[in-house]
């Protein structure tokens, strides 16, 4: 079959030409390839492979998806394009961990305040996502406290404070360079004293291969538990939608250091597809809850599997 069979083919197109031309959807390519044929051939699978790789799905997951489709096709010899398209989407959707609730629903079930800690590598969009989440909670009539536990990056505290003003929620802060665990402690204590519904803790961006910084996260968690033993109720890992295969390692290391309960993928308003989360969600069984679609406070949406897969292949 056609997987990685790049020898048999000439260079079909020069790179530039390939990049310049507007991308044709996989579905339409597949339709063209399958019309008049009774089975899925290499060309179809090649197109699929290309689309998946181009969306950062990664070699391993791409191969898995293709294998599964090949198998389905082999079992079910005569298949038309509609059926094939359906199967294609379904196979990918099946890999994405189930996600039935958003944080809003969860907050209703737990005691007060519901504590969310937000983590991730540098520059992925943690602080912005916190601003957006706070806005959503606020819209739903919840009272929110933000904790400025990124005490490391220049003006990170000011950045979160501006979000606090925008959304009109209090921000608990200390000086730059203060102990982040102590900021988290203060925030949760204040929120509890004021009977707030939700606490969201911002943390400094950290690369997952920095051992000390990863230990710091466990420390922040431990200190939180002095105020509320069950905190944090959610640990949200923010991934940049334009990140490639390294996101895997990010998920792995952050999962190890803190128990990640949900993923958010940002910057999907760009041309990047964020396909790497398929493999991540499958392997670590962590649901993707939110996607970021811009820099404004309204630009946060609940993750929709079907729409995501459609954009991946479209």
């Amino acid at each position, binding site marked *: 079959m056609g997987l990685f069979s790049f020898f048999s083919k000439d260079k079909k197109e020069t790179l530039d030409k390939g990049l310049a031309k507007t991308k044709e959807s996989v579905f339409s390519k597949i339709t063209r390839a399958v019309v008049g044929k009774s089975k899925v051939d290499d060309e179809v699978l090649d197109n699929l492979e290309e689309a998946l790789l181009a969306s950062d799905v990664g070699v391993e997951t791409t191969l898995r998806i293709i294998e599964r489709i090949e198998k389905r096709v082999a079992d079910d010899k005569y298949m038309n394009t509609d059926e094939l398209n359906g199967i294609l989407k379904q196979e990918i959707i099946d890999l994405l961990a189930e996600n039935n609730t958003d944080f809003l629903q969860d907050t209703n079930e737990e005691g007060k305040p519901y504590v969310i800690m937000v983590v991730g590598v540098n520059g992925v969009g943690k602080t912005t996502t916190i601003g957006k989440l706070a806005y959503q909670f606020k819209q739903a009539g919840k009272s929110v406290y933000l904790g400025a536990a990124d005490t490391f990056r220049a003006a990170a505290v000011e950045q979160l404070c501006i979000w606090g003003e925008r959304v009109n929620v209090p921000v608990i802060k200390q000086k730059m360079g203060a102990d982040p665990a102590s900021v988290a402690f203060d925030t949760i204590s204040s929120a509890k004293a004021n009977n707030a519904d939700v606490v969201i803790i911002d943390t400094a961006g950290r690369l997952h291969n920095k051992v000390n910084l990863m230990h710091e996260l466990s420390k922040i968690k431990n200190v939180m538990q002095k105020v509320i033993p069950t905190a944090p109720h959610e640990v949200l890992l923010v991934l940049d939608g334009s990140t490639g295969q*390294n996101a895997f390692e990010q998920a792995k290391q952050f999962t190890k250091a803190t128990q990640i309960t949900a993923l958010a993928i940002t910057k999907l308003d760009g041309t990047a597809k964020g396909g790497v989360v398929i493999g991540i969600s499958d392997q670590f069984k962590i649901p993707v809850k939110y996607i970021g679609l811009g820099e404004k406070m309204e630009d946060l949406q609940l993750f929709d599997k079907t729409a995501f897969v459609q954009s991946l292949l479209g």
Partner: protein
Amino acid sequence: MFENLSERLERSFKILKGQGKITEINVAETLKDVRKALLDADVNYKIAKTFTDTVKEKALGMNVLTAIKPNELMVKIVRDELALLMGGTSVDINTKGSPAVILMSGLQGSGKTTFSGKLAKMLKSKKGKNPLLAACDVYRPAAIEQLKVLGEQIGVPVYSEIENKNPIQIAQNAIAFAKKNGHDLLIIDTAGRLAIDEQMMNEIAAIKQAIQPQEILFVVDSMTGQDAVNTAKEFNDRLDFTGVVLTKLDGDTRGGAALSIRSVVDKPIKFVGTGEKMEAIDQFHPERMADRILGMGDIVSLVEKAQEQYDEEEARRVAKKIAKNQFDFNDFMGQIQQIKKMGNLKDLAAMIPGMGKAMKDVDIKDDAFKGIEAMIQSMTPAERENPQLLNGTRKMRIANGSGTSIQEVNKLIKQFDGIRKMMRMVQRNGNKFPKLK
């Protein structure tokens, strides 16, 4: 998930053994592995394809000499080609002009503001410049404040206009300010923007028009995936930038985006960012990047880091021993001690060829090297100096003495051999790749 390419090639080239020439058929499996390695490293899938085609052409018909293993030959071809694509010699930054103006550009969160600070600091101390930073990100909350904090840290003034929401004007005013105040270098930080955001792309094109900078740097996160080509191409089409900055290389990403970008825009990678601190800036080294993309470890950087931060004497002594092929377990132990001193164990360990993968899943605590140290300590002085003495009985004794297993001892010896080989190869050729006889 990421297997070292040389390990992969070793496996796939078993097929090739005993065949005199590299042919379409016997090279197929290998090229597949090369392509997979590139894709795992986030090299754009089209570029990975083109790349393997080129490698194939170069490899076809080459004689597989008995002296050199076919997989080594193949690794050489791949590395040479990669390094070539990555750009030969490093290109210096243009700081001529009064003031010389450097404009930053890139996506959100790529590291523009941080890099602006790093560059100002570097050019101030290394080239004796008198830099001025200009805060032209009028959108991101506290972006101006961020640059000001960094400016303060490095002792470089920051030009900003809090009330002004027009970055083109601010940039122009900054030039006037720089001229008036004797700054011979102006670095302009801008807001992050998506390549498909027409309005924002027009804005930065207008800034360029208005100020005619000497350099426009495209700052890109080294963890970027397949989309790197689109973004780089789009920014280049609009700005015709003069160089690329690759940030966050202190992470463990393989950084294939570097290759993708080099392939779609013919612009040099001028700097890399290796941390959040203001000192964490470095020149770009194409060969090291090639090795990193292939997952071959980065022994040159490791040795350099060791030299830089610690015992130069020791490094020189070790270099000599490597040259004479006398690098032994004592030296290995010495290197481990140095690494331990240097902190950030995982970073450093990953640079050692063959160790990268082994270290990936290990929780590196301070006792990460405990097993290895125990095994080396259980060797006799003679064994440490002459690793070839290690036969079955000796290995067993070491395993018992160190509370490990014979498998672990074997693994250690294999790792050690790999390191030794790699070190020699690197050294013999300076920073270049091994030449074929």
